[in-house]
């Protein structure tokens, strides 16, 4: 292998110019061709295949036919949800049963936090839940939480089962992998269309859409976890005489616990993100309130609600992460039952006491409206102040960037003839991975064009590429800086961690505040959301450069800048590429969200399709975003692989 790599390298170093010249020549030829033959410039409207109508019709037919089944499923799912909702905020009015008193939930959350992660987590959990009560968001928050609480176990268990199945059969794994790739690259919102047509509007469809989105990471983590159990451990299980089922339950799953819990963390975060977005299909709760506030430009309220969602996200994230890090604890023999189960006992006591207390003091049963606070007013004032005093300055900047940079770029994308657009990724694919990889963009992009999504596709590409370029320009230097200075690393890591727990909706709030609606707002929202991986992977990639290599370069007399440019960056390059890949994925995920503040891309197509139940339009637009993601992923993956091989790391 080493000898072949050595042979390849000089060739590869010489090859690009030749390849490049050939590629440029082909592109030029395509451009000329487009001017001569109109079909090769813009695909004519008349030749669009009405796939979109077919899909819509199919779903309409399917919804009609499957109605008994979908009704049954919806009813089944509604039961546990009703129970949790009754406990959390609704009570059972028919029997005059109140819900759990709010102090029971606030203190219960603190108790849970203490059990999992000690005092700091207890404090975080308690305060975050109290925030929900204090700012009058209790019922909405509990509605959202109910969806999360019911969906998480469902998604976790089904993901686990699928994952187990995949580890038992190579074929199943291959099929599932392809499906999961598409599912994960499809934006949250695109799930809503089919769900609406099948199950209508409301909480249960929201749960189902959530289930679909939260399941793949769990299944993936299960596969990874089971596959990475050390061979000795599995063989020890076999030698102990385990039956296949015993091996699974007693050896493989427990030994893979940490990875499984990582999967659970992902499930929880995805569920919350989706529960918020599902407000678009009428799921009530915090997400819906936030959506209203945003649409009515009530920024103050939006901030209050956004903070609530973020707090819930942070609490759930920290809890599951702390749970993942927990080690089984030694229990001294002879510990009494009460002591071994002290948290359970404490929680029981808490519930009984608060219920009794709530009988006497109604303020403890339902948090009284008079005691709620709001800081929305001052924020609204601030926003008003900003738009009065700052916006006049921001507006010219926004407008000049838009007019001089974004619009020309957009027009350029729209001008490009389709063979050029499809040809570029195809040639890149061919260069890195042969004809198979070249056919992928041809097939996927070609399909979108034939289905009549060319203009939104190009607008999406325009937004995503501009965002990605900006992310790279901002992210890589930050990553380098973090790799140089431990203090910077600590700050940047904390900021990145926090940014990553924000549900994507949240990013719209400050952007709307500052820039109102425009293409620039979209780019900035995407930028804020998607820069994190570019920073992270650059940082990690540089950290992983072998110390010996760096020292050798220093010993050879390289200056710090030379060392960075000639040694560290090239070695970290494959890693950085993966970061850029992630950045593109996140930018794409944000495309659908920015539709809420106005855009004309594929995201907007999804959004517009929702109310009219135009499933074909929404689903295909969602797939369109997924296709861009998949193409980017495969091309970049092949590139990173090739570089790794050349560096002898693959």
């Amino acid at each position, binding site marked *: 292998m080493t000898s072949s790599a050595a042979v390849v390298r000089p060739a590869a170093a010489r090859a690009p110019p030749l390849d490049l010249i050939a590629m440029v020549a082909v592109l030029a030829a395509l451009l000329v061709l487009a001017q001569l033959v109109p079909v090769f410039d813009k695909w004519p409207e008349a030749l669009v295949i009405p796939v979109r109508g077919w899909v819509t019709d199919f779903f309409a037919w399917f919804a009609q036919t499957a109605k008994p089944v979908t009704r049954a499923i919806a009813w089944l799912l509604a039961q546990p949800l009703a129970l949790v909702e009754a406990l959390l905020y609704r009570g059972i009015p028919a029997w005059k049963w109140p819900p759990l008193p709010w102090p029971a939930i606030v203190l219960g959350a603190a108790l849970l936090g203490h059990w999992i992660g000690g005092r700091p987590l207890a404090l975080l959990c308690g305060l975050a839940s109290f925030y929900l009560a204090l700012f009058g968001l209790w019922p909405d928050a509990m509605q959202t939480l109910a969806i999360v609480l019911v969906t998480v176990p469902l998604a976790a268990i089904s993901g686990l089962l699928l994952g187990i199945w995949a580890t038992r059969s190579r074929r199943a794994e291959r099929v599932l992998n392809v499906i999961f790739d598409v599912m994960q690259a499809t934006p949250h919102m695109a799930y809503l269309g089919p769900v609406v047509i099948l199950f209508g509007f409301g909480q249960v469809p929201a749960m189902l859409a959530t289930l679909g989105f939260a399941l793949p990471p769990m299944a993936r983590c299960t596969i990874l976890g089971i596959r990475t159990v*050390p061979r000795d451990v599995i063989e020890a299980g076999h030698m*102990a005489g385990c039956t296949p089922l*015993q091996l699974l339950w007693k050896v493989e799953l427990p*030994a893979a616990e940490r990875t499984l819990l990582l999967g659970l963390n992902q499930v929880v975060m995805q569920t919350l993100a989706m529960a918020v977005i599902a407000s678009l299909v009428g799921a009530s709760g915090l997400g819906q309130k936030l959506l209203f506030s945003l649409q009515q430009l009530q920024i103050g309220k939006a901030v209050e609600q956004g903070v609530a969602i973020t707090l819930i996200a942070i609490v759930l994230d920290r809890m599951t992460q702390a749970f993942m890090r927990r080690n089984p604890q030694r229990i001294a023999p002879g510990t009494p039952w009460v002591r071994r189960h002290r948290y359970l006992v404490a929680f029981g006591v808490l519930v009984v006491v608060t219920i009794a207390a709530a009988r006497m003091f109604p303020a403890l049963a339902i948090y009284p409206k008079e005691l709620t606070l709001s800081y929305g007013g001052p924020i609204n004032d601030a926003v008003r102040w900003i738009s009065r005093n700052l916006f006049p300055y921001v507006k010219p900047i926004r407008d000049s960037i838009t007019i001089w940079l974004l619009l020309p770029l957009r027009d350029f994308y729209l001008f490009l003839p389709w063979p050029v657009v499809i040809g570029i990724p195809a040639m890149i694919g061919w260069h890195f991975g042969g004809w198979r990889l070249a056919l992928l963009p041809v097939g996927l992009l070609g399909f979108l064009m034939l289905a009549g999504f060319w203009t939104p596709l190009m607008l999406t590409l325009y937004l995503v590429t501009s965002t990605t370029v900006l992310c790279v320009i901002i992210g890589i230097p930050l990553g380098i800086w973090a790799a140089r200075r431990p203090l910077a690393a600590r700050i940047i890591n904390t900021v990145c961690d926090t940014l990553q727990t924000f549900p994507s909706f949240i990013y719209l709030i400050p952007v709307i505040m500052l820039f109102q609606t425009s293409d620039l707002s979209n780019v900035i929202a995407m930028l804020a959301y998607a820069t994190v991986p570019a920073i992270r992977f650059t940082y990690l990639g540089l950290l992983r450069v072998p110390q010996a290599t760096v020292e050798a370069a220093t010993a050879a007399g390289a200056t710090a800048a030379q060392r960075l440019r000639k040694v560290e960056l090239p070695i970290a390059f494959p890693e950085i590429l993966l970061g850029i890949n992630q950045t593109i994925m996140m930018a794409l995920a944000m495309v659908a969200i920015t539709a809420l503040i106005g855009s004309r891309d594929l995201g907007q197509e999804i959004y517009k399709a929702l109310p009219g139940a135009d499933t074909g339009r929404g689903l295909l637009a969602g797939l369109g975003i997924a296709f861009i993601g998949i193409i980017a992923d495969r091309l970049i993956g092949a590139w990173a692989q090739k570089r790794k091989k050349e560096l002898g790391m693959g």
Partner: protein
Amino acid sequence: MTAPAKISCRHLWKIFGPDPQGFLKRHGEAPKDEDFARENYIGAVRDVSFDVYPGEILIIMGLSGSGKSTLIRAITRLNDPTQGQILLDGNDLLKATPAELIDLRRHKMGMVFQHFGLLPHRSVLSNVAFPLEVRGAAREERETRAREMIKLVGLEGREDYFPRELSGGQQQRVGIARSLAVEPDIWFLDEPFSALDPLIRREMQDEFLRLQKLLRKTIVFITHDFDEAIRLGDRIGIMKDGRLVQLATPEDMVSAPADDYVREFTRNAPRDRILTVGAVASREHVPVNGVNVLASAKIGDAAALVLSSDKAIAVIDADGKPVGAIDRKRMIAALYPDGAR
């Protein structure tokens, strides 16, 4: 060694590749080394035959990648051999159904792994009790038995610890206790001490010998350390590229290596502690006159006596009958074969 063999392997093959069975057939069930290289198959175990007798410690040695683990995994059916026969107490192991196999493992076999293979989420007690739990023993019973085993390997007081809280040597003691919990007839150990540092390794070897004196199991023990092999083994088999090159007692191996590969292995062997006087003595008879040495004595123990004597010294067997003689020259040749050449 006239007792019937506990384990016999006959013409055992384990081949990795796309179609191992077909590959074997194509080459008349006896592919040559070139065939493997040409068709990119890996012959991890090639035509290996040997017997292990009850109560014996058989050591399998060889360089990394020579197929030791694959061989032991074939005998335990952790992987299925491509071809050949394995008899366990005369029963064909390869014909065992999955249920029979589980039963065999639950009652007859125990195995210790190089990287311990402990279950990270279980305490020491629960790890040791695991094989009993799997076969359905009641909690009381299995924990009593597990405590006995933990005591046997000298870990009492650590029952409630988790593997991550133990040192490597302690973890391997847990591994040993676990493998013994089901009172297996046959005990497999795949480089059990290789992950330990030399001092601990020595200690664990002593521990192993102590246990074997108590338990008298039939043992297949893998190592790549020749010192360990001669310290522990009754017989040693040396593997090279999947083939069993030589299977012999340490003494036979040192005094008559089958080829250069084996000679290389035995080069640094402590000959004075392996060879017996009987093996290096001449067959001539000298008068037995007060000074003589036992044929079964290690030459290291007789060296001082022989080297300080100008004349040949008589060698006698256990009954005191003279069987040969040894002089200074022979002793030096036996101790330093390279110097003599």
